[in-house]
């Protein structure tokens, strides 16, 4: 359905796009020949029990709702999921026990999703928050590992990996979420953003040894992206099979009359903070520019083939076909988008993103090795090169995929990424003291701090909670709109009021009262 009326785009910018990242981690027991990922993932999350609140509102979720219209009867993964569920039930785990959901003090969600520990950041309105709360997730996973190993009584037995593949054809995701005005139609978004998503992997790829996907599994070769092999179609509601470049799940976690959530599943899980910042920063700018100036972008003839082709080509330098017959390289496509986003550059963060975007494209064109201090696929390729030189390993040697895996190990004593960052060979954007804060405290803006304050104040009276709603055991329900326009001062005053409350039934009245001053009706511009 096309948009009926586009709100005034003059003031629309990245600051109006709430965003978040969900990361599924790989998990193994290093001391066992065969791990039970269900048990390990579940127990890891449950080890974090004492520091969080946990009754998730599953009725907010509807992964079959399709932004292209209607609701999918079945998802491609249903059969496999049902088999897993039956197995888990036979082992004595209920659905809720298996999920083991936790809402953390910082507003994040931490749970067992499809046998992977998943950390979903709280909703963020600034890029700086986005990176801080994503990095906090890694620290929280490390702490969960420590707690779980203490329960077992054996330090060093768990391996956690921030990557997207097991090299045997099984992938797991790092999903991006962007809350957009509903009047942006889904078809308009797909058409506008697809070439960008295909091309951005030259700056956002995590690098992978080998090849997977429907065209076979190989252990030799090197490519830019971990996820490109697993993209099979342009759009679709599935996320575990027939994966789409642009997921059409219509689950806004907010008022669906006003918002839609763009749920992207095609991105890699990055170790580099710069890449996570640029992945989210560039994408928010592109989305804002599509809203403000929905002009023509080059349509790719076959976007799925194009992302694989770029990922598997040397340095991503191959040209891909456009529908109009032109051949374009990824850096050429990114340059076109870079020019388009100028109209929505408003904040310091926006300026940082476009400056880094320009610099990265310039470096890429001069010599992609220049990106080795920012980009995982470049840094990882250098490490593999050293290993090949010194150990004389042949292409396809399993050690190379093991090194690839080790690059993503979140253990600071074993992962290959961490010494690079520690020595300054890879750029770090966050300060450790800020990350520590972000493990314990929510962002200052949006609805995350309000949710956290309510759970802290009334945790014992909460029946269940989710992204957009908190239900109290007494029957009261409190909706959490995105609060996009609310500034930190107003949020702080509300938190003060919540801290002094005796009865959650008064929440709505307080919001109404404060809204007389403006800024608490959840309205967007």
């Amino acid at each position: 359905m096309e948009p009926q009326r586009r709100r005034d785009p003059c003031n629309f910018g990245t600051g109006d796009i709430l965003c978040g990242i969900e990361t599924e981690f790989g998990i193994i027991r290093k001391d066992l020949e065969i791990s039970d990922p269900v048990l390990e993932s579940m127990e890891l999350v449950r080890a974090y029990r004492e520091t969080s609140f946990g009754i998730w509102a599953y009725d907010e979720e509807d992964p079959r709702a399709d932004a292209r219209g209607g609701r999918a009867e079945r998802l491609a993964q249903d059969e496999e999921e049902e088999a897993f569920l039956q197995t888990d039930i036979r082992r004595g785990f209920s659905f809720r026990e298996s999920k083991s959901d936790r809402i953390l003090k910082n507003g994040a969600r931490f749970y067992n999703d499809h046998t992977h520990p998943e950390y979903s950041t709280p909703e963020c309105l600034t890029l700086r928050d986005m990176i801080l709360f994503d990095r906090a997730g890694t620290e929280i996973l490390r702490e969960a590992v420590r707690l779980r190993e203490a329960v077992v009584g054996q330090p060093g037995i768990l391996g956690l990996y921030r990557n997207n593949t097991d090299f045997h054809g099984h992938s797991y995701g790092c999903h991006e979420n962007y809350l957009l005005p509903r009047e942006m139609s889904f078809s308009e978004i797909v058409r506008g953003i697809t070439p960008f998503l295909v091309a951005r992997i030259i700056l956002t790829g995590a690098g992978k040894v080998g090849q997977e996907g429907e065209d076979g599994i190989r252990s030799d070769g090197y490519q830019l992206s971990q996820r490109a092999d697993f993209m099979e179609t342009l759009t679709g509601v599935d996320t575990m099979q027939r994966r789409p470049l642009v997921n059409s799940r219509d689950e806004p976690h907010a008022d669906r009359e006003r918002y839609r959530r763009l749920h992207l599943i095609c991105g890699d899980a990055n170790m580099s903070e710069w890449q996570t910042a640029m992945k989210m920063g560039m994408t928010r700018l592109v989305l804002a520019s599509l809203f403000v100036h929905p002009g023509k972008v080059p349509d790719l003839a076959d976007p799925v083939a194009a992302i694989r082709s770029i990922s598997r080509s040397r340095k991503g330098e191959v040209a891909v076909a456009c529908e109009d017959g032109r051949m374009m390289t990824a850096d050429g496509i990114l340059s076109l988008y870079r020019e388009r986003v100028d109209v929505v550059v408003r904040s310091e963060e926006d300026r940082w993103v476009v400056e880094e975007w320009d610099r990265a494209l310039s470096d890429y064109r001069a010599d992609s090795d220049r990106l080795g201090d920012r980009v995982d696929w470049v840094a990882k390729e250098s490490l593999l090169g050293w290993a090949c030189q010194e150990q004389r390993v042949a292409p396809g040697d399993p050690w190379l995929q093991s090194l690839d895996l080790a690059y993503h190990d979140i253990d600071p004593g074993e992962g290959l990424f961490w010494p690079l960052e520690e020595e300054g060979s890879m750029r770090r954007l966050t300060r450790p003291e800020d990350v520590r804060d972000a493990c314990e405290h929510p962002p200052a803006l949006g609805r995350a701090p309000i949710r956290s304050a309510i759970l802290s104040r009334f945790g014992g009276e909460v029946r269940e909670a989710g992204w957009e709603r908190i239900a109290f055991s007494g029957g009261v329900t409190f909706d959490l709109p995105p609060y996009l326009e609310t500034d930190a001062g107003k949020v702080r005053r509300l938190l003060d009021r919540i801290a002094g409350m005796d009865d959650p039934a008064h929440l709505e009245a307080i919001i109404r009262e404060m809204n007389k001053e403006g800024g608490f009706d959840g309205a967007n511009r």
Partner: protein
Amino acid sequence: MERTGRLGTLKGNRLEGIALTTPGTLDEQDRVPFPSKKSQDPTAPAPKNLDPKPIRDRMMDRMRKVDPKQSERYRQRTGE
């Protein structure tokens, strides 16, 4: 846009000890969101970020400890 620094500790029975700080807000002296590098001359030689011998030696030490068979044993279920 209103700029804020650290928020204070919330008082109250249930929030005791929980400080709702603002890790993401920019301090007055820290307006640039992230550290930034000056533009490089595109004709200059590529920086050898990973070349210095100490980091190379350290990384080789760590890489030699990686079990070559680790990736073959590493099996996950399909996620989202």
